[in-house]
Structures are given as structure tokens and as C-alpha cells.
């Protein structure tokens, strides 16, 4: 098969609430499309075998290894990347908790961990420590920030549900954050990116 035998096909995707048209070849993955055509670099190639979690995105709210997912099969299911997580002027509580706990070193793996955690906490607001640990074990951090990542996700859980495990109300930073929906705009992440320069 030559590249000509695998022509580019127009495809409509819903990424961070924007309907976009892309032209992937049949073998292109969602990760290829995000990085090559949409300039969304938060999902990162690590192993391209679904083993490291660096390329994690949410498809229909569930974590997916975008390196393994052919773009053509995504269809109309909404895709959320880390760029589409924050709202204007306000980070997602999981993002904020990662900052508050310095739950990263090089940060290559960070978007994958955050999206995995967001998906879990949206589905299971009361996820236990063991549940969180198990769910996050598909993501690798070679810098070894795991201790702080657990701290951050536990804290984010309490922020999002408004109370601690013992029932006492959560009063720390970002208390009272309304749970995000998939309608979050991508402008917030763009603002965060711009803040770097």
C-alpha cells in the first residue's frame, strides 16, 4: 500500500465543543489529527502502544489513548483535550489541585493524568483512594510525582464534591466550584498558554 492508496478523507470531529473538519488518512490516529491538523499539543506521544497514558483524551467523557484510536472511528462523539478543560479565567479544579500540590515535574504526563482524574471524578464523585489509585495506574510518570498526584486528585475530589471523607465541608481553595460540563470553552486553556509568554 502506498500513501496514495490511503487518501486523506474529510472528517468532522467535535473537539472541545468546536466542530472541526480534518483530513486524516485511514491509518491516522486521533493523536495524529490533534497534533498535526489542529495544533493541540496537550495530548502527547509517549509509547504509541496505549501503555503510558501521555496521549489520554476524553471521548464521550471516558479516557481514551488517542494514539491507538483511529480518527475515523471517533465519529460524532465529543472529544475533550486538556486545552478544553479550563473555563475563561478559571482552571478546572483538578488542574488547580495539581498546581496547589505541585503534582508534576517535567509535566509531559500531566495532561493525561488530569484528564483521567477528571473523567473518574465526573463519573464517581466519591471515588475512594484505592479507586483513584487503580484508575490512575494506566498513566506513567517517570519523574515519579505519584505521591503528589494522589494528593492532588484526592484534594480535587473533595473540592468538587464539597466535603472531605469524614463529611466535614471543604473550605480550601476553589471551594464551591460548579462541576464542569462538556460545554467548557477552550478559551481558558488558551489564556493559560498565553500566560506563559
Amino acid at each position, binding site marked *: 500500500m502506498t500513501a496514495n492508496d490511503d487518501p486523506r478523507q474529510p472528517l468532522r470531529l467535535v473537539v472541545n465543543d468546536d466542530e472541526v473538519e480534518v483530513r486524516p488518512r485511514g491509518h491516522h490516529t486521533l493523536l495524529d489529527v490533534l497534533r498535526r491538523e489542529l495544533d493541540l499539543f496537550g495530548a502527547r506521544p509517549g509509547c504509541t502502544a496505549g501503555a503510558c497514558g501521555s496521549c489520554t483524551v476524553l471521548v464521550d467523557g471516558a479516557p481514551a489513548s488517542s494514539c491507538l484510536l483511529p480518527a475515523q472511528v471517533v465519529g460524532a462523539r465529543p472529544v475533550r483535550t486538556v486545552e478544553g478543560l479550563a473555563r475563561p479565567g478559571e482552571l478546572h479544579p483538578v488542574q488547580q489541585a495539581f498546581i496547589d500540590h505541585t503534582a508534576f*515535574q517535567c509535566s509531559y504526563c500531566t495532561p493525561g493524568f488530569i484528564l483521567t482524574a477528571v473523567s473518574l471524578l465526573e463519573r464517581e464523585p466519591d471515588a475512594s483512594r484505592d479507586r483513584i489509585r487503580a484508575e490512575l495506574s494506566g498513566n506513567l510518570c517517570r519523574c515519579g510525582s505519584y505521591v503528589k498526584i494522589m494528593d492532588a486528585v484526592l484534594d480535587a475530589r473533595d473540592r468538587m464534591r464539597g466535603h472531605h471523607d469524614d463529611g466535614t465541608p471543604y473550605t480550601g481553595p476553589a471551594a464551591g466550584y460548579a462541576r464542569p460540563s462538556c460545554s467548557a470553552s477552550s478559551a481558558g486553556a488558551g489564556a493559560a498558554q498565553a500566560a506563559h509568554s
Partner: protein
Amino acid sequence: MIDPRTKVAGGLPMLADLADVGPGLLHARLLTAPVAHARLAVDTAAARLVPGVAAVFSGRELEAALGGRPLRFGPVLRDQPPLAVERVRYAGEPVAVALATDPDDADEALRHVTVTYDPLPLVTDPVAALDLPPSGAVLHPRDAEPSAAFPEIRLRREPGTNLVNHFVIRKGDAPGALARADHVFTDTFTTPAMHHGALENHIALAVPDAERLVVWSATQTPYKVRVQLAEMLGVALDRVAVRTLYLGGAFGAKCYAKIEPLAACLARAMDRPVRVSLDRAQSLTTVTRHATRSTIETGVRADGRITARHVTAWFDAGAYADISPRVIKNGAYGFGGPYDIDDIWVDVYAVYTNRPPAGAFRGYASPQAAFAYEGQTEQIARRLGLDPRHVRRVNLLRDGSRNVTGESMTDCHYDTLLDVAENAFGREPIPPQWPESEVRGRGLALTVKGTNTPSVSQAAVLLNRDGSLQVLTSTVEMGQGAHLALARLAAEALGIGERVVSVSLPDTDVTPYDQQTSSSRSTIAMGGAVRDACRNLRELLARLAADHCGVPAEQVQVGDGRVRAGTATFGYGELVTVLRAGQLRCEGEYASKGGLDHETGQGIASSRWHQASGAAEVTVDLETGRIRVLRYHAAVWAGRVVNPVEARMQVEGAVILGLGSVLGEELGLDPAGGQAQRDLLDYRMPALSDLPEITVDLLGGPDDEIYGLGETAVPPVAPAVAAAVADATGVVLTDLPLRPERVLAALRDPRPHHHRDSSPGDRADYERIAR
């Protein structure tokens, strides 16, 4: 400074995200060898006909395109071609490259490259590889040119053999002292090759113009890469610029040129920008941690005091020398451990084999050495019926002791570190076992690691009219937090807020010289350079204010962001404005001194001795052989901690890396010499579910010296876990990783392998080792 909001938004600038480096960017795709050792014939004719392909090169064709000279690189010995020429020396070595604007076209072209392999003898055992190998089994029959990257390294080689380098230490009279010892114990330990596992794979972009080459690379060593590229291309240093962005982890894998030479050659050959980006399978074979085999012969008095030691170790360098000649130096002085041994000889051999090249890896030979010497500490204690903690205690280096390279020690904290490890889990006895098939034990280890010495770091600080300060540094930020530490040191030196300090990304055109970002050295060395630059800036501000106000310089005070000259007071930025100075710039430098005698290995090996202990509690399932680490306590002598949050995370990360090395990580070869692990499903690294409870002690205080922390906590992990397993089972395991089948085999046959307690005079094979 890095805004943490960029990290949680996936927006930290990394090289893989740099899409636009100029018109006409070509993507390079590599074809790699499936066999480990063969003569090579590459036919690219059909591949060049694939639509959309700009070029296809074999190694020979790439050399022809650049004038026909051999293209070779390497930080010590220039023995490595960007693409294999005539001969492939490891499975995974690049043998052809295709270039296209659309990477899919390049991939397609590679399917049309024809390569024929004519097998050569497979060399995988470094010990055997040293003994007069048969024809064809010498990987590099012709000696390689030395590199200007490390001109000071003197080698001990035998041309026409697989010896890369032999490093010796001769302190005292080890043979004589062994002959007089009450007991002599000989034990052999092995460690396997490992993958660094940085989640960002190797990537480089080379952008040529008529006169110069700009190379963007995810490298830890921009200045070393620059000299390596310049010498390979035969151009002056100023004709090459190396720039980095933030790195997605490195752990030593990104030290010295790796894929930059290929990117540079392709950019020159095509006169277009070229991007080389590896996938995981390719990164797995680009560089590894040295597999080692270490035989330690130690003479001991009946009370546990070590009187003599002779170590013979083989480090598997793989197919190219990379930095092996230097790694074995650190390995050699590492074998003394934190112990006071009057008579110690060490012989370490780095040997070519048909494995992927081995290079720098977090810990830099210290973890391999520590697994061996601490394993033997356990063995010695058991054989003499002593407590292993006692054997450590009576042998510790203390201030005034002479270490393995004859240096008089200062700032030793091993007693404290041993105390901490002994008390890590309290003094309460281990609870009763349940289920019966599971046994529980505790163990500890005590280790030492040096740092790159002698070394030089230079920095500049730029004071702007608004009072903001730019630190220009070539220190690479790869998650270790060096840039925050540098900003903090600069802010502190000038009495200004961290928020007005920014730290540059490395660019060899702009940022001052730095030897490299490695070896746990940046906060000490680059931190020293930044502090020196800030001192110079304060002096400059005082002088300028004195001149401006017409007061004696000694009446000027500089601090807390202000300059007070007589009755006048200026903010730093205000003074720059008033003087119409544009911008003030001051330079600073840190240079450590040292070096070892070529014949004896005596001298100053390291400007700092990084001291650590670890304590582990494990269970061992006697039916399955599975080891579970329940708790791990790391203690390091941290001295003055600049950045407590990230310092602690560096130690935690070091522990987790160490746990991977002890519990399962191993890069293997299949019987044909091919790489056994092709991805991260095969090569499993620790995940959250694998972790024990980890606790950390950073010992030291604000008045102490700054110590490095990136690697210090790695070496104790494997020996501490092995000691805990020995405590639980009575068996000291000698081969990493401690896989269940190995544990079961050792439990069935608890006689330690390679053990010999010989009587004085029984030195039959000593002559051979000591020759």
C-alpha cells in the same frame, strides 16, 4: 519562570510541539536493523521513486552527499556513525533514512528500501568479549578518533579488541592486605540493562543556512552537542547553535549527541530544515543503562572491620563507546562505598558488545556499584554472624578518613544516615506473619555518589530598567526544578522577589557556557555561577551609584532591591534608568577542581560526596517468589535545600526509579540478539499501583553547603530492598531485578553463588586479575 498553569494546560513548550521552524521542513523516518551484528548492503533506489519523497539515504550515501568523509561522533571516542555504514552493530541501529514533507510518504519509502544482512558473530557477554575474540567478533577493528568534547579523558585501551576502556584504582596494597586478612569473601553481582523511560522521546530539528546550522534538540548537554556536531561537520564551534526548550524527562538519556548528528547531516545534505523524531521502539535502543557484572573480593577481620578489597567489574558498553569511558571511572570509585578501606584496588572494564549503546543513567554507575557492595556487606555480616548494621557502623567513612581515591573526607554524615535508616520504621518488632506463605523483612543500605568533577558553569544576569532580572543560563530544565532553584538563588542574592526573575532557555548563541545538565550538579554549579554573577552585579551597582552621587564606594549599600548612596536611594531599575545604562549585565562562574591520577586513580574524584541511606520493609511470598515493598524510607544529606517542594519530589522520583530497577525492569535480548522489549507494554515501569508508602528525610540546615539531590536517593533502593528480602528469607540475592522466578530459585538453593571464603595463601587466580 515557568508558570505552573502552562503545565496543567499541556502548554509547556516542548520540542515535539515546535511545528514551524522555517519553510520546507522535512520529516525524517528511520529504518532500523532487526539483527544485532551483520555486514550490511542497503539499496535505496526503489524507495527514492516513491511519490512525495525528497531523499533516501543509506549510511554510505549520506557520507557521499557530504563530501565522502567518514561521519563519526561520540563524546569520548568518535566511533558512531549517524547511519550504519557497512556494518550494523546492534539491533535497532538506524540503517536508512527517508525524508519527505509528509511523514507518511517517508514511511512509505522505507517499505521500498532493501537491506541484506550477512551475519557476523554475536557478541553479548562482555566478559567473554574481552578474551581474544574470533575474527569478526571485534566490533571496532580500527581505533576511533578522540572527541574534543572530553579532551581530558585518558584511556587505557588495547586496539583490536573489544575493550573500550579499563579504569584502575590502586590505593595501598590490596593483594598483600587480602593475604593477611582473617577472612576473604568473594561475591559476584549482576545488574541488567535498563531503559531511561523519559516519556518524551528523542527529538531534534536542524535548520541550516548558508553559513551556520541551528539545531533544536531535547538535550541535557547543549554545549557538548555543539562541539560534537562541529567536529563531525568539520566547522568552527560558532558555526553551530544548539537550542533547547523544556524537556519531557531525560534521566541521562539525553546527555551527549544522540540523533542530533543525523539531523545535522541531513539538513546539510538537503540544505533544508530536517526533523528527526524517534518512536518508543527506537528510543528503547538509542541508549541504555549499563548491564554490569561485579566481582568483589573483600578481606575482613573477625569483628567485621574491612581491611582490603579488590573489585573486578565489567560494564557492558554496547555497540558504541558513548560516555562509557567516564561512567566506569565513577563506577570504579563507587565500589569503595561509604566505607573506610585502607587497601583497595579496583579494575573496571567497559566492553563493546552487540547491545544498544549504554550511557549516562540517573545515578551514573553508582546504583550498580551500590547493589554489589551493599549486597556484599549483607553477605559478610551473615557469614560472620554479625548484625549488618554493625558491619556498616565499624567501617564508615568519617571526617578525616581517606576514601577510595585517597581524598581526606569532610562533611561526612554516614553515622546520621545510618541512624535514620535504622530507626525508619521504629524499633517495634515485625508483626507476626500471615498468611504463612508470606515472610516479612526489613533492610537498609548506605551509599555514596560523586558528581562531575572538574566542571565549569558560567551564567550572566541582566538587570532591566524596570527592575526585572534575566538569568541567562544553559542549564536545561527537564522537570528537576533547576530553573526555579536558580531564580530563587538570584532573588535571594539581590534581595528581590522571585517573580521579577526570569530564567532563559539554553541557546549556545546567547546563554553562557555550561558543561552539562547532569550529575546532580546544577543547583551547586550553575547556582554558584548565578550567585557569583549577582555578587558582581551588586558591586557594579555600588560603583555606578558612587560615581553618580559622588560618594565613596564604601558608603554605598546594595540590598533588598535598593541602592543607598549617601542620602540618595534608588531602586535597582531606577538606577539603570537614571544612568541611561540601557541594561546592566554581569557574568559569573563556578569551577570545581579535581581529577584522578591515571596510574593509581588517586586524587579528587568529586567536588561533593552525595550521601544517602534507604530502609525498606518487604514481604516475600514463598510460594510465588513475589516481593512486595510495603514501605520505603529515603534519607539524603541535602545540606541547604533551596527548593524544598521539588527537592522532596526529586528524592521520591529517585526512589521510584530505584524500585523499578529492583522489582522488574530489564532490557533483554532475544536469542538472535534482537531487542526483547519493543514498547512500554513489554518494558514495564512503576505505576501508582506499584508503589509502597514512601517517606523522605532531607537532612541538613540553612547554614550547610548545597548538595545535589537528583540522583542521591537512587543507589540505596535496590540494595535496601535486597537486604530486606535477605532479612525475610535468609538469602542474599545477587542479580537484579529480583524477579519472582529468581527469588524462588534462590530459596530452593540458598547457597550463594560465586561465594568463596578462602584461607590466606589461596590466591590461585589473583595474578590474573591483578596483572
